[in-house]
């Protein structure tokens, strides 16, 4: 449970020595309660207080990394329920199921799909992050053999080993020694044996339960057995239950600092219908899943889910920016129009969308204004005549176009004269104030 400032105060030395940088122990306690100070700042705190406070001040969702190296997946550390309050921290990982009953060639095929799943979107590399190897056969040897194929064909990809048999888990996890896989999972009937396997192999342990009450009891038990890195499965499979359980788990962790549920969530959304699976996966992305396990990873599906994850995990306080450059819309020719705008992503999306709607191939010069929209950037002195002139000159766009004409946003019409002064030989045309008038504007020019 989260401790209040007063509860924390009771555990402090109450000397008001100011060594922590705050005027009184009470002031320091209040800052600790708000997570704005660290207990390390107090040199005189007792060991017992450290233990109690350390537990209370840890992040509500435990930070856990699974896998190692550059493909390792970071999970947890979340502090809020809604993305507008504060950035969601560690993006949900996508995993694909590989059943150990598949042929070696099929297993290798899916593993290669995972390795080749990476795509680039607005400067970020996005991919299927993990493989969930399931012991459908019930046979330990088969699971181990499949594990070896996965390890060979998808080296470095984090793995979730799914079996209820501790001996099968132990054999398979050894294939990924030192790579911190997830073992999934422990349940009410095998929890001790599984905890031992996870502990001995330094693996993350997946906990599987029927409902949240059983889940809480199991995680406490696992913790008492010496395993602290866990991921949670409440047993929810239907969209309705996933939403309910994920929400209640996140609330318990964030609002009540309820430690038994302060771990990342794993959602199993496998469905025959690939499109429905995509939608249930998207619910996992939006609503607190840390790992979403799917049946298939078609490219059309990946690009949609990667994009959603990127959208949901964007920092709401930092405007999304697009890269500064001259973008081609359609296939512009030398005489096609050239627009300029700022690099706030929404501005870019709306302006480029309207140019696309007009069906007139164009160039759109997007200038780095630290993600501000046109008027704000102008007001902040980031979208000025001299900066525009410098950007256009350095872009070299004049070599690609026939006439030197630049269309500026209507809101900065006032700049047209001074840009002309600073860009000798260029004609500056004032475009529409709002992007939705661009199609008419372009149509008018053509006529």
């Amino acid at each position: 449970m989260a401790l209040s400032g007063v509860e924390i105060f009771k555990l402090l030395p109450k000397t008001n020595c100011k060594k922590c940088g705050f005027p009184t122990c009470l002031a320091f306690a209040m800052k600790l309660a708000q997570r704005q100070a660290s207990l390390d700042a107090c040199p005189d705190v007792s060991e017992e207080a450290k233990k109690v406070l350390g537990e209370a001040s840890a992040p509500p969702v435990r930070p856990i990394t699974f896998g190692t190296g550059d493909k390792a997946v970071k999970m947890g550390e979340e502090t809020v329920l809604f993305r507008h309050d504060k950035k969601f921290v560690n993006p949900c990982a996508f995993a694909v199921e590989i059943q150990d009953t598949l042929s070696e060639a099929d297993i290798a095929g899916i593993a290669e799909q995972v390795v080749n799943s990476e795509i680039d979107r607005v400067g970020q590399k996005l991919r299927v992050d993990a493989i969930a190897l399931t012991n459908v056969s019930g046979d330990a040897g088969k699971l181990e053999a499949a594990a070896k194929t996965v390890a060979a064909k998808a080296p470095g990809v984090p793995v979730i080993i799914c079996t209820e048999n501790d001996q099968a888990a132990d054999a398979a996890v050894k294939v990924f020694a030192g790579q911190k896989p997830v073992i999934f999972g422990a349940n009410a009937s095998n929890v001790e044996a599984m905890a031992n396997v996870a502990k001995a192999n330094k693996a993350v342990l997946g906990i599987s339960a029927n409902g949240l009450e059983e889940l809480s009891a199991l995680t406490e038990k696992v913790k008492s057995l010496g395993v602290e890195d866990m991921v949670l499965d409440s047993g929810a499979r239907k969209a309705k239950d996933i939403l309910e359980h994920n929400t209640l788990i996140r609330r318990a962790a964030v609002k009540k600092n309820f430690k038994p549920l302060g771990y990342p969530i794993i959602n199993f959304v496998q469905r025959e219908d690939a499109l429905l699976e995509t939608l249930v996966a998207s619910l996992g992305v939006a609503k607190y899943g840390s790992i979403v396990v799917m049946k298939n990873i078609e490219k059309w599906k990946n690009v949609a889910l990667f994009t959603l994850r990127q959208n949901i995990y964007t920092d709401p306080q930092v405007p999304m920016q697009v890269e500064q450059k001259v973008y081609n819309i359609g296939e512009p020719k030398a005489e096609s129009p050239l627009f300029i705008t700022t690099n706030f992503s929404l501005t870019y999306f709306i302006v480029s969308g309207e140019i696309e709607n007009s069906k007139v191939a164009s160039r759109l010069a997007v200038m780095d204004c630290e993600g501000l929209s046109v008027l704000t950037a102008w007001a902040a002195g980031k979208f000025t005549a001299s900066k525009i002139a410098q950007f256009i000159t350095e872009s070299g766009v004049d070599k690609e176009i026939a006439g030197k004409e630049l269309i500026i946003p209507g809101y900065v019409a006032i700049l047209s004269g001074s840009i002309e002064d600073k860009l000798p030989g260029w004609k500056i045309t004032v475009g529409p104030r709002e992007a939705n008038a661009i199609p008419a504007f372009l149509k008018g020019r053509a006529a």
Partner: protein
Amino acid sequence: MAFTPTKETYSGKVYPVSIGTGESEVTFGGENVLPFHSFEGETPNGPLIAYEIQDVPPSDWPENVRKPYEAVSDDPVKWAKHCQEGLKAKAIALRLTGTHPDRENRSPEDATKTIQDVLAAISVPLIILGSNHAEKDSAVLVAASEAAKGKNCIIGKAQEANYKTIAAAAMANNHKLIAMSELDINLSKQLNILITQMGFEKERVITDPMCSALGYGLEYTYSVMERIRLAALTQNDAIMQPPMMGDVGMYVWKIKETQASETDMPEWGAAEERGIAWEAVTAASLLAAGAELLIMRHPKAVEAVGNFLEELA
């Protein structure tokens, strides 16, 4: 430490809105909890998906969403009947694209005729949308409101620049009204206030905080919707309590990901499935954020979102 679920009880509630008449009347909204949180409150009505049709052939739609309507989209009446009978639509959204001055520039009288013909052919509720040209819409939507008198339609969209005439016409003819503002909770609230100050009942408004497609600003629409809904429920802010809508199809089917061929973008996979998934994921995300009314285009995307909703019920 025993687990006790943290259930929330909210002071506010979303207004239920009913559209259409007789047996085909449908209601959406009415819940007193966050989207699909039936474990802690009432969700009496599920969201409503309306099929989008146009008054003119959809030459501006990309091929993969034009194809399913190829046989019917030359005529809005045929198209509407196909949606009602073939696709079992629960509502239809007629967009008067052809009235836009840069398109066919059809007159308000043309729009009246189209609306009357469509209404005569269908029994499900109709949503009537302008061409998003503020000036032209005020003339067209006034005519539309009169043409659909007594049919309990949704008229939209009223924006800051034209809400007075459109709201007055919707009020006089007893319709519901979409109030659209641009991705800002304060602008949205302000427009709802302006409209209700005219005497338009807030219980008859549908808030459109402006849609964005997945990858093209979806996170803004998503968070504005979540914030509006939290204001409605936790602060019991009556002016923020109308249900919300997402004009999904229009925003989704104009971006690169729903148009580029697999030949051009091999790493994006099959173009048709990709477009459908794009529309469905955008819709599903907005449902999770709080939308109760979606306007969509591709039958397969609508079907998938319908299946998703069944799982959430």
